[in-house]
């Protein structure tokens, strides 16, 4: 048998650097043996040889296919093993997978980015892309919520983002500590202060399922239409190529048709959130 490209075979990659982000989140910087050109929002299957695979969306700029950053929350078997790795470790990467964000539709639009917890990681790849094409898009607002001040991801970058022309950034935490001077409450509290055109903007959101539910509800109340909203849906995945059946919402496979789904497409199906 001659196998042509085997989509299940990983590309070898070396772990170059590990950055501690929060007590539960680290960013891993990989150098793959072959460049992995991706569009922001596309994901990869990170494969710990002999241990397991899990899907993650790069948090780095799509313009750097030779040096891929992935920001990972420690939460189970594969991610705990990842968090124990030291630079130099060899891993496998399958991808890029999925469609990614609709980057062709951004031109001329105001962009609202709503993240929760580690959900800011995939959105950062989109932000890097947006900052790169800033003169082609309208205003950019970033609303971010984390459980506590220690869990705020990419803290060192908020200052740099906020000073970019046309960019507004605000964050909130569920549980503040005494030194916290920012907003308190879930991320929807930040949606009362939006300075862009909600009737025509595009919204990109990534975070836990419950957050989506409230974010969508609030945005619709504020006058946005489902067609404007893209959600980075989280589902258990295995093949990543639309064949193993695991990640469906109705007839869509999130690994192939998403993971960033237009809300209008999926809102009619049950068990979305």
């Amino acid at each position: 048998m001659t196998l042509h490209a085997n989509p299940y075979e990983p590309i070898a990659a070396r772990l170059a650097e590990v950055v501690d982000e929060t007590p539960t989140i680290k960013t891993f910087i990989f150098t793959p043996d072959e460049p992995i050109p991706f569009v922001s929002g596309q994901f990869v299957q990170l494969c710990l040889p002999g241990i397991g695979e899990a899907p993650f969306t790069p948090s780095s700029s799509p313009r750097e296919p030779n040096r891929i950053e992935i920001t990972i929350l420690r939460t189970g078997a594969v991610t705990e093993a990842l968090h124990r790795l030291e630079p130099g470790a060899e891993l496998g990467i399958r991808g890029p997978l999925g469609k990614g964000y609709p980057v062709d539709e951004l031109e001329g639009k105001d962009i609202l980015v709503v993240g929760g917890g580690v959900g800011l990681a995939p959105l950062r790849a989109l932000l890097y892309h947006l900052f790169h094409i800033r003169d082609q898009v309208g205003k950019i607002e970033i609303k971010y919520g984390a459980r506590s001040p220690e869990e705020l991801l990419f803290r060192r970058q908020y200052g740099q983002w906020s000073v970019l022309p046309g960019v507004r950034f605000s964050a909130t935490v569920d549980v503040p500590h005494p030194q916290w001077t920012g907003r308190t409450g879930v991320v929807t509290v930040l949606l009362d202060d939006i300075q862009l055109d909600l009737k025509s903007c595009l919204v990109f959101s990534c975070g836990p399922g419950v957050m989506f539910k409230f974010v969508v509800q609030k945005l619709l109340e504020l006058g946005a239409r489902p067609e404007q909203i893209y959600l980075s849906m989280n589902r258990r995945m295995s093949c990543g190529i639309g064949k193993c059946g695991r990640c469906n919402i109705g007839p869509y496979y999130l690994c192939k048709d998403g993971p960033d789904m237009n809300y209008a497409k999926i809102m009619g199906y049950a068990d979305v959130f």
Partner: protein
Amino acid sequence: MQRTPRLLREDRLSDFLCALPGDHCFVSVETKSGTDYAEYPTSSTALRFHRPTSPIKQFFLPPREHIAAYWGAQGLPEIVPFSLVGLRNCDLLSLRYLDHVFLGGICEDPFYRARRAAAFLVSVDCLPPQKTCFCTAVGGRPYPEGGFDINLSPVDDGYVAVAGSDAGESLLAGLPFLEDAGDHLLGQVEAARSSMVEALAPAAGSVDPDRAARTLAGTEVNRAWEPWAGKCVECGACTAVCPTCHCYYIIDTPGIDPEIQPGAYAKVRTWDSCLLAEYARMAGAGAKLTPRPRLRSRLSNRVLHKYVYSPDQYGMCGCLGCGRCDEACLGGMKIRDMVDAVGSQR
């Protein structure tokens, strides 16, 4: 290439089977519990019996196989040419469905592709239907119309053999013991086919896939599924025997033999079932660990995948009317009863 019908006499069947290409030949056989496949030579070849209990997906998607061997590992399956004899039309249609999944979409599955290319398919017209057969209700016919290399239609003296591919035609053309099939034999084939369609008439109206696609849409979490979920024991038998169910899971393992090849790794794929609670369990300890925590949602997802989503995804109904799930269900459920009951409660 012109396709000529030829007569294969019953006493020449074994010569025919021996002439089929490939390193292996699997034929449908009669067993104590029904019909199944066995490697030829066997004394129990059964081409005039009802369809085998097991689906043919096992020959194209083995229940467990290595699909990646890397960093020095060896042991990817060696796929050798083989013949499959005794396929029914619903089996051929199941390949059409699986082709959409594994050869279409964003990329091909190289293992499925290799097995498809390695297989020589010999189908037969159905004779007695299984009690559970309802192919004509979902638009099927009890005789093959395409997708085979050679089809055999049983007649009094043997079989009328017709090629469906160039490979099939050249094989038939090279067999000296085949005879011309005269018009009276072709008449016999037509008559047998009509009487099969008639035998299936009671089942023919038992479900309407177009109507089901409309009435079931949007019922994912409908309470009407509850009584059915109450009967389901979550064994997954239905998904195992369904010829179009194809869910699988990939497991990472150390290589095929870690002692011999340290530092080598492999990925193994195994069949899975969307009915099982763990199927879509996600990470963490969030409020909702799986998108379908209730059995009724998982059951409805399976039935809707057949009748509602598959027409959207692949342009064909995912239920081929073979009735295998009805035979296998430990809860005694019939898929048509579910479709009917839920659809009529809207």
